[in-house]
């Protein structure tokens, strides 16, 4: 990955930001919850590379035609590690046909596995899933009468994240619940590529307000404009008068 000797982290677009760091069979962490905070421009560019046999760590699998749903439709994903994969008919079809491997993790266990991997921790013991299918085949330890199971940290070849604002040093700020898994995923990739809605010069973002320090981000693009999708629109009526 000699491309990392490049002094600037800024790339002109998603396709160039993925150049030289994509290969068949690679593993990938992807931020987002539902369609919220998903690195959609980078996913679209990854689709265009034609890369195959991906193992993807992501809480959800997108919806039909949106987010990771694009990579599923084109059969570029071999295995998903996720906590919840409703809302995707093509996913269901491939899974039931045995064309797609699936590993379910409890959502918090997945978040912690990614956090641990990015923080250099091999594994951790957790109560979550003890006595359930999740514990099958895993080392267990009983401490003070409670059963804990060993879960291992996750490190991937690549992480794709979406932030609200970023600077050319790779410092990132997320917006509202679009933060979700993104800061954790950003730490777990050997190379992390971020897409942002607004890319600014160093010094513009308040250093005290940075969510992801630039050390975790090797490449960054301005992905705007965005047309953000809503999965379930729920509103309340305005009161009369």
């Amino acid at each position, binding site marked *: 990955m000699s491309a990392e000797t490049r002094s600037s982290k800024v790339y002109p677009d998603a396709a160039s930001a993925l150049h030289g760091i994509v290969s068949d069979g690679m593993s990938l962490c992807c931020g987002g*919850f*539902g*369609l*919220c*905070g998903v690195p959609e421009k980078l996913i679209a560019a990854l689709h265009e590379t034609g890369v195959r046999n991906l193992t993807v760590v992501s*809480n959800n699998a997108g919806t039909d035609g949106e987010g990771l749903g694009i990579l599923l439709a084109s059969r570029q994903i071999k295995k998903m590690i*996720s*906590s*919840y*994969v*409703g809302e995707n008919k093509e996913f*269901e079809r491939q*899974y*039931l046909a045995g064309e797609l491997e699936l590993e*379910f993790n*409890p*959502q*918090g*266990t997945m*978040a*912690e596995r*990614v*956090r641990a991997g990015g923080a250099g921790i091999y594994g951790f013991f*957790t*109560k*979550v*899933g*003890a*006595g*359930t*299918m*999740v514990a099958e085949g895993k080392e267990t330890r009983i401490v003070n009468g409670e059963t804990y199971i060993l879960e291992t940290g996750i490190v991937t070849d690549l992480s794709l994240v979406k932030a*609200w604002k970023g600077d050319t040093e790779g410092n990132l700020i*997320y*917006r*509202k*619940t*679009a*933060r*979700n*898994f*993104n*800061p*954790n995923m950003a730490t777990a990739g050997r190379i992390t590529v971020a897409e942002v809605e607004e890319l600014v010069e160093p010094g513009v973002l308040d250093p005290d307000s940075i*969510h992801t320090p630039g050390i975790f981000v090797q490449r960054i693009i301005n992905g705007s404009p965005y047309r*953000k*999708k*809503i*999965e*379930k*629109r*729920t*509103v*309340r*009526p*305005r009161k009369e008068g």
Partner: protein
Amino acid sequence: MPWSREDLAARAARELKDGYYVNLGIGIPTLVANYIAPGLKVVLQSENGMLGIGPFPYEGEEDPDLINAGKQTISELSMSSYFSSADSFGMIRGGHIDMAVLGAMEVSEKGDLANWMVPGKMVKGMGGAMDLVAGVKRVVVVMEHTSKEGEPKFKPYCELPLTGTNVVDMLITDLAVFSRGSRHEPFKLVEIAPGVTAAEIRSKTPAHYVG
């Protein structure tokens, strides 16, 4: 007359105490937010990374970056905060959330919960349910007393794959409320829906309970 979905939500809301941090599951549990008693300060947590969930936004004010764990658009409050998924589940797993209200497919007399998977059907995943039942201090379950086919759902053992073992503190069904003081005690029948008899509940409940 059995309790309605709204009645179940209202009954679960009576378990809330002032100052509680609470996580509400998808479905009937989400409705609990509509029945929080006036004057009670309850902070709702959303596992996708928010404390202080506000009501649904006014039409035209929906924000794609502001959703709850059910992916519905919501609003923020003056006291709201946002955080990462790892921090969110640190709160949950670490015992910082006072109460969770969840739906269920089956509950056992030992307090085991099954609510995420039916073998042979497409499995959508457990989401945050296993983390919630393992970490939250008090777990309240709301469900129909029997399945659509009339099969009991409160049983000696869960037959479906488990979400957690010995994790349920209170069970609210459309016919009755069962509660226990600690996770070492059996469930007690503490309330019966209007017009429902204790004999009817007994006949529809293979699980052992007191009362």
